[in-house]
């Protein structure tokens, strides 16, 4: 056990168990994330040398390159990275809390709620000429409200002398299916051009990113990630099951509510700006688990970097592979993530 190191802070009030081996992997992943970050800022319609990108990031470079990198590319890269992180961490939390490998933000209805709200927004605020009567800037607000209110609705429906994970997730599936049905209905009844726009959102795309959105998403996500990081030990305890957890002095229901709140807030922020990007919330935690094991102290940061990597790479592929056509990032998250995960399943049979 010598690759573990205990860190105690504030007179033992706060302590961490550091898994040195896992943190080496995480550092490697962080470097990989930075590399992809620079790479994705340098490729696109006009290629900019990665060294120039670095210059621009530190204030240099010529005007045109500056415009391309700072105004066009950086916002979407940031949104991609942080949305990916948020979804992956939310997925990890939910899988730990529900103790089900199939749990993900999609399955408990949060994403579907956001989707239904966005489609409803497009349908309600359109005039007879099919143009929006309010600014498209409000679309993320609709997505956010939809996702959070469905998160709460599922919680309320599932409440009966407390929440059991299985009830939560089954009701989540029901509500999710209902919301998807609503979405399909609205898309069928509305004009087709809106269906394409809504489809784009449901698939998940970061093409509309701008700096204002980045300034909202980054603090929001970082704050929530910090909170998550401080309560990971509760997640470890919850994984033992309700009885063990409560005899360890863990207040199961209160924590469960907090964890659900955290994951809903993370997902709502991410999908408000990046749309309902699928797969990341489901698979990033599994990939992370295969790499560093299932202790949440290391699982959460690993899942976060993998989520960021997945969405960033998916976005790069989406805007370069079929250029000039731009394919939403959500299309490729599974295309790059799934083969890797299947390889991990093959190579590394879990003990």
């Amino acid at each position, binding site marked *: 056990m010598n690759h573990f190191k205990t860190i105690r802070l504030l007179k033992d009030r706060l302590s961490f168990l550091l898994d040195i081996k896992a943190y080496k992997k995480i550092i490697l992943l962080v470097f990989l994330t930075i590399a992809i970050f620079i790479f994705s800022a340098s490729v696109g319609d006009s290629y900019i040398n990665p060294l120039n990108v670095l210059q621009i990031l530190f204030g240099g470079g010529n005007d045109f390159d500056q415009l391309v990198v700072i105004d066009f590319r950086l916002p979407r890269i940031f949104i991609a990275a942080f949305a990916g992180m948020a979804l992956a961490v939310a997925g990890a939390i939910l899988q730990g809390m529900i103790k089900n490998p199939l749990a993900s933000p999609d399955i408990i209805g949060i994403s579907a709620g956001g989707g239904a709200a966005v489609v409803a927004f497009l349908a309600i605020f359109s005039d007879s000429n099919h143009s929006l009567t309010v600014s498209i800037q409000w679309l993320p607000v609709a997505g956010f409200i939809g996702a959070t209110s469905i998160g709460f609705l599922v919680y309320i429906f599932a409440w009966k002398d407390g929440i059991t994970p299985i009830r939560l997730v089954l009701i989540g599936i029901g509500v999710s299916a209902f919301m998807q049905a609503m979405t399909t209905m609205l898309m069928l009844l509305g004009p087709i051009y809106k269906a394409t726009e809504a489809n784009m959102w449901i698939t998940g795309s970061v093409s509309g990113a701008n700096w204002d959105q980045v300034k909202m998403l980054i603090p929001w996500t970082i704050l929530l990630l910090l909170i998550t990081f401080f309560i990971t030990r509760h997640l470890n305890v919850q994984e033992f099951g309700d009885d063990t957890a409560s005899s360890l002095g863990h207040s199961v229901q209160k924590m469960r509510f907090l964890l659900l709140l955290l994951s809903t807030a993370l997902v709502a922020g991410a999908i408000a700006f990046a749309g309902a990007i*699928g797969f990341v919330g489901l698979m990033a935690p599994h990939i992370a688990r295969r790499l560093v094991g299932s202790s949440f102290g290391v699982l959460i940061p690993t899942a976060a970097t993998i989520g960021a990597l997945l969405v960033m790479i998916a976005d790069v592929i989406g805007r370069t592979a*079929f250029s000039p056509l731009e394919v939403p990032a959500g299309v490729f998250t599974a295309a790059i993530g799934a083969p890797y995960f299947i390889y991990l*399943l093959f190579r590394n049979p879990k003990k």
Partner: protein
Amino acid sequence: MIFNNTISKTLALLISVIILILCIGISIVYGYADTSIETALHAFTQFDHSNEHIIIRNLRVPRALIAASVGASLAITGVLMQTLTKNPLASPGILGINAGAGFAVVFSMVFFKISGLQSFAWIAFLGATIAAIAVLGISSSGRDAMTPIKITLAGAAMSALFSSFTQGLLATNEAELDQVLFWLAGSVQGRKLEILTSVFPYLALGWIAALFISPKMNVLALGDDIAKGLGLNLGFIKVIVGIIVILLAGGSVAVAGPIGFIGIVIPHIARKCIGNDHKWLIPMAALLGSILLLIADVAARYIIMPQEVPVGVMTAFIGTPFFIYIARKGFKKA
């Protein structure tokens, strides 16, 4: 469970059969062109080539039979998958069936310009089979071969991969989107009887096999270790279950496109009614699945008449409130 002895369980099944027959009748009689029961009967006894008779013989009857068979098949595969993966969230889709079928249909449409429901049916069946075999292949590798968790994860990853390919193809070929979107939503409308009859042998084989395998499923539900200790050949049973799922879910997706919800929700409702014994559970789920799909299909005709709503939408609208009620009433552990 609501019905807890053999007599009441038998009664419950009988009542479900009667409701099912009623629903088939309703599905044949009601719709945009309202007909009556006499006309429906006359369409077969004294066919006079009138519009009503043609509608009943060529549209309504195939549609009702397709809805009933598909609903039953999906519900049975849901039960099998949930027991196989020990996961209450599993559905036939977890074996990659729907995603594989969807990809195969979109792929053949984009690259080979194939269209038409009849050819879609075979392509979908093929795609579903390939995807399911790939999932079973991946999960049978390594030391933890065919454990529930490995089947689940391999299936979820494969489904995601195939749906991502599908979305990619659709995003780069928008012209095809319209035609195929309707297929991807799942529907029992406009299918000719030939589509059902060509797939029906596979479905029937799947139903019979599912009934025969039900005692073994009870053992499998106890967990892999206990099942092995009781002398169950785990690998063999799991492969058989895989084949039944391919037959039933593959056949369903071929006929009606990917219809979700039934496969995941009906097993829970059936379990709540009749308990965990697969000998009762499988027939009960089959009946309930048929009934839900038939009712949803009739409702789908009336909501935005003369247009129709995809039946998958209606199953969710009708099934969800009931499902939430059941979920709140408390579950026996799956």
